[in-house]
């Protein structure tokens, strides 16, 4: 198996299409969650907590938190898809085995899964953007530029999740990833408060985490400003896409082709 085999073919889109087909059947509960959850967050944190906080970083707290919730929701949605849903397909339903009996290769399946995780992340992000814009918490001319950033963030969280899935023996294994990676990012990467309020060492740690860079790009774009250090943030997210993708590919090849 050479590294060239890690590059996916267009067949990966058939994997995306399969997952989309299943999602469409569960559209109603899925959409209910996509719209319902952010609404609750915005009400509880934006209005509830925001009432005491007032302004943060020069904007109403609900505006500050809305963009943070968009970014963290991309992380949560893409991670969940890349962990629980992908593991179910691989392990319980043997969907990957069925796919590997066709011209699809491991890289096509992996790329399809990662892309689908990113698309799910985008769907949840768009739902939040729609809900938050009714509160006036999303605004400005650059909102549409957030879409490629959301997709790239989704790709990186999806790739990371598939590394864990490729190693997992059971669903319980995912708790480590949530407790050690997802939850810390949720709390320390600028979703709820600006990074500069953290002590220096914590700020440095936050700089190596992908969610920090997703927030750094999305918050300005969703609040009417242009982000700074764009190549840096995009570069980190790109690295977090490519490197985990290659690791996940290696692990899946070892797991599926025995």
């Amino acid at each position, binding site marked *: 198996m050479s590294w060239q085999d890690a590059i996916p073919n267009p067949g990966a889109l058939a994997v995306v299409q399969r997952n989309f087909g299943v999602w469409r059947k569960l559209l109603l509960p899925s959409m209910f969650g996509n719209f319902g959850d952010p609404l609750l967050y915005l009400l509880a944190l934006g209005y509830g907590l925001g009432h005491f906080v007032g302004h943060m970083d020069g904007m109403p707290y609900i505006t500050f938190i809305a963009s943070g919730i968009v970014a963290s929701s991309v992380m949560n949605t893409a991670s969940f898809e890349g962990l629980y849903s992908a593991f179910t397909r691989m392990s319980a339903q043997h969907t990957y085995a*069925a796919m*590997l009996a066709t*011209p699809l*290769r491991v890289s096509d399946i992996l790329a399809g899964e990662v892309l689908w995780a990113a698309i799910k992340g985008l769907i949840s992000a768009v739902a939040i953007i729609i809900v938050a814009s009714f509160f006036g918490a999303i605004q400005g001319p650059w909102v549409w530029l957030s879409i490629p950033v959301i997709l790239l963030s989704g790709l990186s969280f999806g790739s990371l999740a598939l590394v864990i899935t490729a190693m997992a023996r059971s669903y319980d294994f995912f708790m480590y990833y949530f407790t050690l990676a997802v939850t810390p990012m949720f709390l320390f990467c600028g979703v709820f408060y600006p990074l500069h309020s953290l002590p220096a060492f914590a700020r440095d740690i936050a700089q190596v985490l992908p969610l920090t860079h997703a927030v750094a790009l999305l918050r300005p774009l969703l609040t009417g400003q242009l982000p700074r250090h764009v190549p840096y943030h995009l570069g980190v997210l790109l690295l977090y896409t490519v490197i985990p993708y290659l690791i996940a590919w290696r692990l899946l090849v070892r797991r599926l*082709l025995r």
Partner: protein
Amino acid sequence: MLKPAFLELKHLHKQYAKREVLQGVEFSIPAGSCYALVGPNGAGKSTTIRAIQGLTPLDGGEIRMDGQALSTLGAAGRARIGVVPQMDNLDPDFTVEENLWTYGRYFRLPKTRIRQRSAELLDFMALSSYARQPISALSGGMQRRLTIARALINAPQLLLLDEPTTGLDPQARHLIWQRLRDLRRQGTTLLLTTHYMDEAERLADQVGIIDQGRILAQDTPRGLIESHIPGEVLELRRLDGSIPDPENWHQQQVALSERVGDTLICYGQNLQQVMAHFIHNPDYRWLQRPASLEDVFLRLTGRNLREDGH
């Protein structure tokens, strides 16, 4: 006349840690014929099937399809192969026809072709009236038929079937056999694994008996029986469970026999003498029958249980 081999397996070797699962497996299948690989659990049947699909990297040997090495064909080779896996892996979230459509897309087939072929295959497998049903509405036999239909979506030249009828009732098995013979007549090359000897006898032009990663014997079903079992079979069962014929009287009459628990099995052309001797003895129950592939199989692979395999 000997047809050219469509699938050739040459000296396949595969090792997992210290366990050698394939130790020089070698056979070839002429185009449009059916080869059955029979063997106990863990003999290397599924590993061989996986190797042909390119899912198991080999430690040695070569597989050629239609004259080309499968390792160089890669995904293009799989486009010409259909696979019926041992474990059903239909998509439980889709209906019967959606399963076929989705699978067709994995082969990058055009949509009109997929729709047309799906309808034909559902008809072929007697599933048309279930097209819009969810998978959960199908019985085990119907799911198997759908899995076979799915494996045919790309009109494969080679169909691999890993224990296609395990766990099915006789009606379902007979329907599947009928369809597999239809496919063979239409020119599809078939390779199936099974541990049902009657299945191999009914379907296969050639049977290979595999154990511990080696092909022990291969021939037509008839040829295997004739060369390994002389004539008929007589089973003498002692009703009280003690050793049948303890004085070994039968050994004067038959050349080949074996004892399995309460049963004495005699093989030979002329078993009349043995039968006449025991037929009126109330301690025995007897069964005379023609030799079958199962007799060959048990003689070659022994009667020990294989419970370590998967």
